[in-house]
């Protein structure tokens, strides 16, 4: 009977929350999701295609939402309060919707690094300095009006990632492959264009990423320059003048380009700190949720009954996020069925 089902409340209806919800529902739990946005799907809903296979993001969303009708989603709702009681957690929201849950799964995801913070890159000042997120919107919604012949594009890797000045020492992991994917898409969209990628390293760690990178060079003629950007300015004719240091030759370079695409990295979600406080889940020094145990128990937290999944614990690809969500569903299932996950010593 519905009333006897144990209830799992999930915070965040991106692909992690949706995938975990699907599996928890299949395992026989009542599932509710609170989502602050108007729609489900998180950031993936804003993307055009995904790497490395160039699948449409709609396909990923359709997959993640395959069981959407089987659980309750509360859109435009934010969790404001939670307390433990004998039956688990009593939770309230800004819409005054109350929940009694046996377990909590936090999947608030990430926020895109605010490229305005890199003032010298001119985002928000020079019209044709855009971000990777903007570029996905351009591909989805059409390019703004301009003469599209012989455009020169520059992709700037590691914006707000591996950057002590931004306060983010970690690698955002997905931006290298995204840049290569987007560079190929630009060449396909504008066959006359010249495309440059200014990278720190190229971290092509996943299956078929290296092949995509090889194709970018050999098939699509994209120029990869190991360089760091110093500043962006605007020329008299409204083109962009960039100054970079080629870090292989240790020489400064100046280039004139039409578009700069800043590969903004991942940062903890805006509500991560609030959720951390409400549920007593610690964060690491970068603000991502800290699991109970790194490497072996990344979905459990030190707060009993509270679980984490997806990019809330650190940058992840779509594949990793979906796998992590399934893992979290299983961890919750073990918890609610009063069993425990075997430890690294093989004991229960």
């Amino acid at each position, binding site marked *: 009977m519905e009333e006897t089902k144990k209830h799992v409340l999930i915070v965040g209806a991106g692909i992690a929350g949706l995938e975990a919800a699907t599996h928890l529902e299949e395992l026989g739990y009542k599932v509710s999701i609170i989502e602050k946005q108007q729609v489900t799907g998180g950031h993936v809903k804003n993307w055009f295609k995904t790497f490395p296979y160039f699948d449409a993001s709609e396909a990923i969303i359709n997959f993640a939402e395959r069981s959407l009708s089987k659980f309750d989603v509360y859109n435009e709702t934010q969790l404001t309060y939670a307390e433990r009681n004998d039956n688990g957690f009593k939770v309230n929201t800004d819409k005054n919707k109350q929940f009694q849950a046996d377990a909590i799964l936090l999947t608030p995801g990430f926020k895109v690094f605010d490229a*305005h913070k890199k*003032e*010298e890159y*001119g*985002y*928000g*000042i*020079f*019209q044709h300095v855009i971000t990777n997120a903007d570029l996905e919107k351009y591909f989805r919604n059409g390019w703004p009006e301009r003469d599209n012949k012989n455009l020169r594009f520059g992709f700037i890797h590691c914006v707000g990632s591996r950057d002590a000045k931004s306060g983010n020492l970690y690698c955002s992991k997905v931006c290298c492959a995204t840049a290569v994917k987007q560079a190929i898409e630009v060449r396909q969209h504008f066959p006359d264009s010249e495309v440059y990628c200014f990278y720190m390293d190229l971290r092509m760690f996943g299956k078929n990423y290296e092949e995509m990178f090889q194709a970018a060079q050999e098939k699509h003629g994209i120029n990869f320059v190991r360089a760091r950007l110093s*500043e962006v*300015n*605007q*020329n*008299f004719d*409204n083109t962009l*003048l960039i100054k970079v240091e080629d870090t292989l030759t240790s020489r400064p370079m100046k280039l004139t380009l039409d578009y700069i695409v800043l590969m903004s990295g991942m940062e903890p979600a805006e509500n991560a700190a609030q959720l951390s406080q409400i549920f007593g889940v610690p964060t690491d020094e970068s603000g991502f949720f800290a699991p109970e145990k790194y490497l072996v128990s990344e979905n459990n937290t030190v707060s009993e009954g509270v679980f984490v999944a997806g990019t809330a614990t650190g940058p992840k690809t779509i594949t990793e996020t979906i796998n992590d969500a399934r893992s979290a569903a299983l961890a919750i299932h073990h918890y609610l069925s009063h069993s425990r996950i075997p430890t690294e010593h093989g004991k229960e």
Partner: protein
Amino acid sequence: MIELKGKERIWEKYQKEIPLDRYYYARSCIRQNFWPGSETTFIKILEEELGKTILDEEHHTTCSGIAYHCDVIPQETTMTIVARQFSLMCESGYEHFVPSCITSFGIYTEILETWNEHPEVEEKIKRMLMEATGREFRKPKFLVHPSDVIYALRFDILKKAKYRLVNAKTGEPLKCVEHVGCHYAKMFPDKGVGGAEFPRVLMGMIEAWGGEVVDYPERRTCCGFGFRQYMVQANRGYSIACTKRKFDSMEPYKPDLIVTNCPGCPFFLDRWQYVIAEMEGKVYTEDGYGIPVLTYEELAGIVLGYNPWELGLQMHQVSVEPLLKKIGFEYDPLDKFKVGNQTILTLPEAPGVLKV
């Protein structure tokens, strides 16, 4: 297209509290030679136009910044000299330290930040100052550059303005290049009005007084001084190449003037125009006179209608007369080389290419 809102977003982040009265003024080592009217004009504007109190006394010394940046004295020596300046300020009953020079401003900022981060260094310098001079000091309540003060008072100056940065014939705003000294905010962005990347300090004055700021690609590039670029004679090619790059970059915008807030920048931007003209026959204005380069005090003085020759504008290599004519400034060209009522300066030799 340049989005003003993007700049405003940055300016909001870098607001600076600027005291509006009672300044202890520390003069620059070199400005009185380069731009002899600038510091006296600053004092005159504050005291006579705006009724402020400013102490300009004779006991302070160099901050030793040039020696420090040329690596010829240790940092502790510079710190002890700076501590003595603060001691003089305290002794005079002032709390707001206002160094004329941008390099000094950078030196003071860097030292105060060092002492904040490393209190043990401050204690050591206290001991050293006591041993060397028997003096004690307190840190200033506010450290501001005089360009911060003029920025804060720009609308008060506007109320008394006789001229605007507007072409008197066409009514068009003058196109102004602003060049902010490197040591103003590049080391500590939050110590400058508007930060380091899009500083507001000179832009605010220009806009308040009717001008329009030119944002050209090499705006952030060094003026060409760069200490060792010029101080080491063998490096002077770097210096002029740097300055030339700036002029080449700003030329298409046809600027009417350049305004600066550093001792060295106007010197290099002004004098190298003569050298570039002699070396390459190149002048960066269609009229052949070059782009006038002013300190912000000189600019404020012009806006207030002060006698340009009492402002010391005859000490500029690039003639300022075309600028004065543009804004409709009434002046007597024959007074240019007079001191008082007598002509005591001989007319300088005219350059080969630049018109004067």
